[in-house]
């Protein structure tokens, strides 16, 4: 294990490897990723891996557009020798209430103004794009054909492989046991395999960011909560787009493997880092999905699991240096969208840490927005 590093990234999920990659791409040296288990072993490996650009805030639109375009050429840019399984079957947002329709129209206008080609479509147009869809009760839908979903495991590997090829070091099965500080500055980290002297630590520990912050006595305005997903047996492709609806509270995709993967927001989810199985989720999920995709009643659920959403007060991430501790950076609070935004996360954090000009609006995503009343409103979050 190295004894010193310029930058230590805590967490080998999609955000950590993306930050690591972009740091090296923009000239940083001696960057280390510390992962307590294996790559993508946390929320990344448990996520729905949907990629969409259909948002209601300009900031999210810009960040997600950057990310989606990155993924389109990621295999080449990262030089990956595998497949990240980017299925660009589009994202279809189902609209079932008048209020939702009004908001949707605003969102589409915003997206179009930012170069995102989302279309507002009729129920019959939706049916033509998603054969199994039950359009009963559907007022309209939006569709953007460049959205889709990815394989989170291979995508993480693609970043990690590129990071290592550029000289980065990844230590898996390695836990941070302490963070050293002196006079309000980071001086190093301790791990179960040795210590590393460094002046810069990036806390990208996903659901566990507070555990890392606890080591330096900092309380973050974030919490982690459980989010449930289930998956079915695989069948031949019958559904192209990824479906999603705020009013119906669900998202669902058919993976390239053929299985249907779906999730929804459940009430009363624990916030104590538990990712155990929720007894109410499978029934509620099934009731929802067989209404939207009636054919799925004949498909068998194989498994449910859960991961952690790291939630921020305004459902937007925090990309910033933690006030009061020089060299301690935070990239967290993605509120369920960390995977799809990960290229923007990497780009933003690299620019922030290396002092580069901002090409993305990460300046709005600092801690100060909470104290200065500049929180960001996003009307389109599950």
């Amino acid at each position, binding site marked *: 294990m190295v004894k010193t590093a310029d930058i230590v990234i805590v967490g080998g999920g999609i955000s950590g490897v993306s930050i690591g990659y972009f740091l090296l791409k923009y000239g940083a040296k001696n960057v280390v990723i510390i992962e307590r*288990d*294996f790559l*993508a*072993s946390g929320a990344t*490996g448990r996520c729905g891996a949907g990629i969409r650009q259909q948002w209601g805030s300009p900031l999210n639109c810009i960040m997600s557009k950057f990310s989606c375009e990155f993924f389109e050429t990621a295999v080449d840019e990262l030089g990956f020798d595998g497949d990240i399984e980017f299925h660009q079957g589009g994202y279809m947002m189902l609209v079932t209430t008048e209020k939702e329709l009004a908001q949707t129209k605003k969102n589409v206008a915003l997206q179009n103004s930012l170069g995102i080609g989302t279309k507002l479509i009729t129920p019959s147009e939706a049916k033509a794009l998603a054969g199994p869809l039950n359009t009963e009760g559907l007022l309209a839908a939006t569709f953007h054909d460049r959205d889709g979903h990815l394989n989170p*495991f*291979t995508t993480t590997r693609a970043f990690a492989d590129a990071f290592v090829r550029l000289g980065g070091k990844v230590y898996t099965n390695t836990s941070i046991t302490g963070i050293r500080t002196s006079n309000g500055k980071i001086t190093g980290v301790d791990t179960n395999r040795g210590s590393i002297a460094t002046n810069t630590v990036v806390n990208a520990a996903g659901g566990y960011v507070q555990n890392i912050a606890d080591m330096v006595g900092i309380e973050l305005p974030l919490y982690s909560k459980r989010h449930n997903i289930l998956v*079915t*047996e695989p069948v031949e492709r019958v559904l192209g787009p990824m479906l999603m609806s705020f009013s119906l509270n669900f998202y669902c995709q058919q993976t390239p*493997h053929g299985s249907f993967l779906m999730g929804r927001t459940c*009430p009363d989810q624990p916030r104590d880092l538990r990712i155990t*199985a929720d007894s*109410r989720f*499978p*029934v*509620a*999920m*099934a*009731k929802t*999905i*067989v209404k939207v995709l009636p054919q*799925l*009643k*004949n*498909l*068998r*659920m*194989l*498994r*449910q*699991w859960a991961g952690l959403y790291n939630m921020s007060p305004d459902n937007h991430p925090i990309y910033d240096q933690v006030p009061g501790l020089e060299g301690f950076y935070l990239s967290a609070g993605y509120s369920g969208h960390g995977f799809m935004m990960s290229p923007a996360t990497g780009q933003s954090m690299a620019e922030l840490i290396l002092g580069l000009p901002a090409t993305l609006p990460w300046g709005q995503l600092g801690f100060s927005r909470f104290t200065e009343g500049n929180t960001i409103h996003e009307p389109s979050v599950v």
Partner: protein
Amino acid sequence: MLEKTGVPTQSEIESVFPSDERLSKGPVAVIECFQSIPCDPCATACPRGAILPFADINDRPVIDNDKCNGCILCMTKCPGLAIMVVDITWSQDRALIKMPYEFRPLPDVGQTVQALDREGTVVAEAEVIRVQYNKSMNKVPIVSIAVDKQLVKTIRNIRTICDTPTTATHTAIQEEAQDTGIVCRCNDLQLAEIRALIAKGYTTIAELKQMARLGMGPCQGRNCLPVVVNELSRALGVPVAELPVGSFRPMVKSIYLGDLAGYEEQGEN
């Protein structure tokens, strides 16, 4: 040898056979129970107390040959079918052997059958003298055969339907180089694929799940995991007990979404 082949040696057989003197006095049980196993029904089976009481359930049976009268009661109780009764006084030149026989059809009295040794080799012909089978016999028919007295320590079985068992051939068959054996039936993963992934550094069950969907099909890993943990253990030189095993999630058995959706419960949302 017994442990390797399943056939007791001559000296092992001699060790459980009564003396010639006792044999010459009439029918007596011979118990070929050479291994200490937790089993004791024979010890309480004999109304005459000829099989000595066990101090421990793993004791091997010891017969008081003077008390044994060669009845069949212990034979019908022995789960290992390890007991026979021999009577060399049965006739001038032939001995009677009573043995449990759990095959159908049962032979007919008077029928000539093949007499086999302890390796199943035909060593003589034998005449069926008696076939006992009634409700009190614990579903264990007893067949009595008459055989040459010289063969009383050799014969241990009969065959009523006489055909020659097939033996192995030694011609090689074409090998299919691609096929190393299926490990994960749900996702059609070959052993070689798993080994390649392990060699690439995916050294936990959880990573193999992610990279190859190992154990993520309808069987929920019941088939593949025992094989794969041993592969990992060998490849890494780490005992299985020290390998992380990943998570186990509902459902144990796959269930139709329509059936789940049909479940009604108060307070469910």
